[in-house]
């Protein structure tokens, strides 16, 4: 910015006459829509990286048991609150492959905590493709082969161990299985309800619309968390972990649909006046067909983008519920359940590694946000 003598401001930035040429001027704009979307999405670097990261994470879920050196609830009674261990490659300048130093624990009776001493003279190589605790590969193939495990007489706690001597790293991998799918199930429930109610409200209008709209307003004006709390408190305590898991994800979804329904409804209100809808109706298409074949495909992509943006809220919701002890319960492992251990200041101060599960939560939530933003920006390929 420069100020002229008469007090006016002018921009010094170089002027590029081609800057505002819209994408429409490109000659290949008649390519199929998905290609255009992909072309735009590719330019959204952050979204692309986030998408790849999430893809890899979800693909790894079924084989989490193979990667984890321990199983989810395997306890090492002599190694409670063990600090994180590093994997080394060189011992006194010589390469001996990935190894750990063994540690021995001692009770510190003054401060009432465990002290671990590292024996740096005896490097112990990690075992690869070794036999360890039994788990189910892909959820149904029984197996006991692990990618790597601790050598005899030593431990490999990459991110430390918790109050019961369970490996935090392995538990994060197992926890991902529940924490990452809870959002998917929740969003499916919310999607089905939201599209169903939103489309009948928008398409039929009148009384139906009025009733659904009031319901949406009421649900939206209620604070979510107290309702989640109340609903989860109603889950019988004798149900198994799997049933609790499903019911919690459904609860998360049930309270999420109003926002989606509103978006769908307002879109339908404007779209139902279009000529092609009238044409379809005149040719005798039933409302269900008009909604599914003619109206929904118009903005499915937008719905997917907004769904991506609301998955993080569900993941955080599950974490909060489990953290308060009203969500998933042990022996189920989720990131929220793990954080339940880090509930007080003492553990954050003395055993900071018990709070490590917050890192994957933050990363995954960020990734979903970036992916959703990227999708939203790229779904309208004709906008410059």
């Amino acid at each position, binding site marked *: 910015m420069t100020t002229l003598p008469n007090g006016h401001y002018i921009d010094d930035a170089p002027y590029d006459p081609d800057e505002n040429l819209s994408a429409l001027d490109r000659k290949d704009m008649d390519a199929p829509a998905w290609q255009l979307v992909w072309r735009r999405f590719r330019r959204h670097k952050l979204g692309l990286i986030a998408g790849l990261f999430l893809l890899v994470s979800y693909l790894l879920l079924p084989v989490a048991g193979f990667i984890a050196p321990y199983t989810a609830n395997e306890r090492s009674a002599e190694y409670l609150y063990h600090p994180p261990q590093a994997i080394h490659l060189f011992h006194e300048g010589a390469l001996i492959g990935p190894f750990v130093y063994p540690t021995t624990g001692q009770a510190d009776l003054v401060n009432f905590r465990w002290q671990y001493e590292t024996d740096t003279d005896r490097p112990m190589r990690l075992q690869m493709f070794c036999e360890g605790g039994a788990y189910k590969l892909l959820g149904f193939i029984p197996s006991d082969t692990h990618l790597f495990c601790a050598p005899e007489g030593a431990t490999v706690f990459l991110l430390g161990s918790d109050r019961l001597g369970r490996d935090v790293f392995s538990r994060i991998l197992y926890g991902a299985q529940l924490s990452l799918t809870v959002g998917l199930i929740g969003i499916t429930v919310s999607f089905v309800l939201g599209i169903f109610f939103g489309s009948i409200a928008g398409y039929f209008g009148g009384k139906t619309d009025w009733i659904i709209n009031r319901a949406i307003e*009421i649900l*939206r004006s209620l604070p979510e*968390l*107290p309702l989640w*709390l109340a609903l989860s408190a109603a889950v019988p305590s004798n149900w198994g972990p799997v049933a609790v898991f499903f019911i919690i994800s459904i609860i998360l979804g049930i309270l999420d649909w109003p926002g989606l329904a509103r978006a769908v409804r307002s879109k339908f209100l404007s779209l139902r006046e279009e000529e092609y809808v009238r044409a379809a109706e005149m040719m005798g298409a039933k409302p269900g067909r008009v909604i599914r074949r003619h109206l929904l495909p118009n903005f499915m992509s937008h719905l997917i983008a907004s769904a991506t943006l609301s998955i*993080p809220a569900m993941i955080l919701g599950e*974490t*909060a519920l489990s953290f308060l002890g009203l969500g998933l319960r042990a022996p189920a492992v989720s990131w929220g359940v793990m954080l339940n251990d880090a509930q007080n*200041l003492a553990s954050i101060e003395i055993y900071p590694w018990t709070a490590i599960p917050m890192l994957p939560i933050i990363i995954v*939530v960020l990734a979903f946000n970036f992916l959703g933003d990227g999708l939203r920006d790229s779904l309208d390929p004709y906008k410059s």
Partner: protein
Amino acid sequence: MMFLKYAAYRLVTMLLTLGVVSILIFAIINLPPGDYLSNQIAELRATGQAEGVAKAEFLRTEYALDRPLWMQYLIWVGAAPGPQGFSGLLQGDFGWSFEFDQPVAEIVGDALWLTVLVNLAAVIFVYVVALPLGVLAAAKSETWVDYSAAFVGYLGLATPNFLLALMLFYYGHKYMGLPIGGLMAPEFEGEPMSPAKVQSILVHLIVPTFVIGTSGAAAMMQRLRANMLDELSKPYVETARAKGMSPTRLLAKYPLRMAFNPFVADIGNLLPAMVSGSVLVSVVLGLQTIGPALLTALKSQDQFLAGFVLMFVALLTLIGTMISDLLLVLLDPRIRYGAREG
């Protein structure tokens, strides 16, 4: 006059909504099988304490828990005569907490005001932080200012509230000497208001306000930035710029006002989220708001206490939404009264 009419209309809809909400809340609380007293009776029977059973049975009839559910609801609200005649929420009788063996009003008492206080502080925090940052991010869009604001915003959205609370408490205490836990120093509890007590409350409010407000501020900042950017690309802004208007004036004169609208409207979304956040944060930080009371009540099926707290939280949100709707009408003459739905 039109405005008063609209305000009255909004008030009536709010009250009706509150009525529906009370049904919902009552239904949710009664979802788990059994109630506090029948659980207690079963337990007493199992341990063979007959005299306790008699007391619990007495309480059961006293609070009409032996009647059908719809009757219980009407008695709870105060629309039907209970064992002591009309005595429910409408009459200002909030019921009895079985867990604490005290009237609900006495347990929540101060906590209600502290809840309002914490949430109010958080709302103010959100506005104070989000307004300048959002405008700045839009004005300097695609520069490092924008990116760093976006980064902080994303981080605020992604960090679970309760963890942020724990971390801030720990580091705030370690490096800045901020107090740990509670909403006031213990010696002021139950004391009448005094300058020293007010100061103590304010110092204790810093961390909770920050924690509850962060995610709301981040969301609002992003929305304000998007609104501003939309507004800044309009022809009138271009004209003003071409004529050489000063950058600050250019921003403040019209775009800011236009972008402000959704900002006020957003409080309807903001408030439920904040109230949710404050419940969770209160549990973690041990604030004497109604959050911890709600959690214990829900866990032990102490139904009158849980019901009252949920009703109060819903009322808080509904009032906030109503105020934002009224403000919006005052701010923007383009909004038509009554039928605003497209």
